[in-house]
């Protein structure tokens, strides 16, 4: 079977600024693909090109075996796209919104499908509430419900959990996993590392270019980062002190600790040794996490928008 998404060398510029630059991606069916990268890295633009909302300046490929340039009408019929900003009608109720979307997609046995979707996403009790009066978590549930009505084969989710509380995020991901288990392919962009870790595969984008891809484990292993965790009192002062050491490449505050990394592993260990001697300070090597990797990637990628 061919890939659900298979695009090569996508490029898109706005006002002469290359927002997406020579981007290629392949997503196999039934997988959850995480799409990561700093704000403005071109994730939304890429997703919009995949679902036919934007025409790429260069590059080609297919989405659900339809050409992303010439067959956008077909793509739209089989893709569920959840926009970053809530984009259903705030002055319609939950069930009115779903009815509208179902009619646009000409969903057969509409009433039944809407009722089932309401039930599935736990929206049934609130179906008469106006969308505008819903909290972030409920809006996101409604948006997901609207994406699922026409039984798409591919879900494109653009930062679906931004501004949503942890419980609602957990429920949301449970839904996504359930859908993937049933054969749905999902491409989801996110800034949350716990969500990235739940994806089968990750793509990291920065300044319009693909920087790294693979499973979470592969991405961490390939980074070759050496991370030391430092804890103690007055972290800001400690941070300034550490930054002055030539062996130290990066000092990143992680809650009540500092993550220190360097290029030369042996030298870093030696340079940090005196800190371990100080009273109240603990220094020890830890296994790097995804966040360490991404922060270091963000640090290294060059801002081509200047």
């Amino acid at each position, binding site marked *: 079977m061919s890939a659900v998404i298979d695009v090569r060398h996508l490029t898109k510029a706005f006002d002469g600024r290359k927002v997406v630059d020579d981007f290629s991606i392949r997503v196999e069916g039934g997988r959850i693909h995480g799409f990561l990268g700093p704000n403005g890295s071109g994730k939304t633009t890429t997703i*919009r090109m995949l*679902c*036919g*909302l*934007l*025409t790429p300046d260069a590059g080609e490929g297919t989405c659900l075996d339809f050409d992303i340039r010439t067959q*956008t*009408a077909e793509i*739209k*019929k089989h*893709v569920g*796209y959840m*926009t970053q*900003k*809530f*984009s*259903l*009608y*705030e002055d319609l109720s939950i069930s009115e919104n779903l009815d509208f*979307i179902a009619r*646009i*997609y000409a969903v057969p046995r509409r009433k039944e499908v809407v009722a089932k979707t309401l039930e599935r996403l736990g929206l049934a009790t609130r179906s008469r509430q106006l969308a505008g009066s819903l909290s972030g978590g409920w809006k996101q549930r409604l948006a997901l419900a*609207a994406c699922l009505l026409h039984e798409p084969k591919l879900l494109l989710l653009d930062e679906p959990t931004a501004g949503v509380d942890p419980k609602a995020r957990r429920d949301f991901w449970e839904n996504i996993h359930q859908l993937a288990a049933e054969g749905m392919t999902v491409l989801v962009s996110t800034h949350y590392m716990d969500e990235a870790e739940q994806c089968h595969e990750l793509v990291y984008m920065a300044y319009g270019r693909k920087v790294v891809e693979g499973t979470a484990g592969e991405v961490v292993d390939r980074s070759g980062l050496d991370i030391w965790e430092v804890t103690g009192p007055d972290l800001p002062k400690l941070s300034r002190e550490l930054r002055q050491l030539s062996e130290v490449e990066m000092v990143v505050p992680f809650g009540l600790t500092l993550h220190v990394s360097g290029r030369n592993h042996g030298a870093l260990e030696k340079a940090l040794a005196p800190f371990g001697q100080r009273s109240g300070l603990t220094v020890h090597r830890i296994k790097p996490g995804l966040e360490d990797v991404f922060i270091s990637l963000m640090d290294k990628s060059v801002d081509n928008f200047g």
Partner: protein
Amino acid sequence: MSHRFSLARVRAVLIKEFIQVRRDRLTFAMMIGVPLLQLLLFGYAINSDPKQLPTAVVCADPGPFARSIVSALETSAYFAVTHKPASEAEGDQLLALGEVQFLVVIPAGFDRSLQRGERPNILVAADATDPSATGNALSVISTLGRQSINRELSGPLASLKTNEDPFEVRVQRRYNPEGLTSYNIVPGLMGVILTMTMIMMTALSVTREREKGTMENLLATPARPLEVMVGKIIPYVVIGYVQVGVILIAAKVLFEVPMLGSLALLAGAAGLFIVACLAVGFTFSTLAKSQLQAMQMTMFFFLPNILLSGFMFPFRGMPEWAQYVGSVFPLTHFLRIVRGILLKDNTMYEVLPHVWPILAFVLVVSGLALKRYKMTLD
């Protein structure tokens, strides 16, 4: 911290406002453009004392007195003799079509009965649907005739020169004998109200989707532009007809405006006019970036419509260039249709010449709208 009135805080708001006004180019352009437009239109185009009004003259007498009356009309400031129909019936038709503002009929045997001192009649029929267009012209016409004739009455005929007029001018204010301005204004309001609400409602309904972000969702669905356009427009067509109904009932009950012509014909013309307004609104919505801009565009379109269509000021009082501009607007033609049907009992034949310009307008503008409305976010 002090909570008295702080100039520093005023300054902060002031600077922010200036930056925002400067960023919003369209608003800025409107603030300069609207007064300029008003200045030009009121200063150069508007004239509440129209001159050189088209006049049809039926002169059934070849004699010198009749001829001198015709030439007096031709040289006067208020009248321009544009048609010389062969019969009074033909002249009536010109009046009904709105081709001429006045019809002057000099009967056969005019000279002879004038010389006999019988005080013959001259008929002056005016299209009084717009009383303000005809008032001044009618007030000069009797003196005009008297002066021209008195010059001719010399020698043996000098005895006819009396204080009394040698002939009588019979003025007929057709379609609106009492010269009521409400007969003119109320039917006209139908066009004006439709223009205002229809354009604004459609312009806002699409820009609202863009501003709220719901457009992105709509574009990601299989819905096609024409489907969206038709679906959005139909509710407003219905609202437009409700407005037409309300105005007609008010015109009848409150203002007792006569309704001589076919209401079905009026409904058909109103339908076309509503579509024209909606097409303009839809085009604005593809150009405007925000609801505020859509409102401003509507106002900018509305202003010359009101001033140049013949709604507030006589169309024929405007200079030629302003009449050309005015002829582009569907409102100009719709006003003539409404007044024609209600007051003049116009039929399809008289209405048709005003339908084509509206139809052409609809085709051009909706073509533009469909071209501007994009299926993508590019």
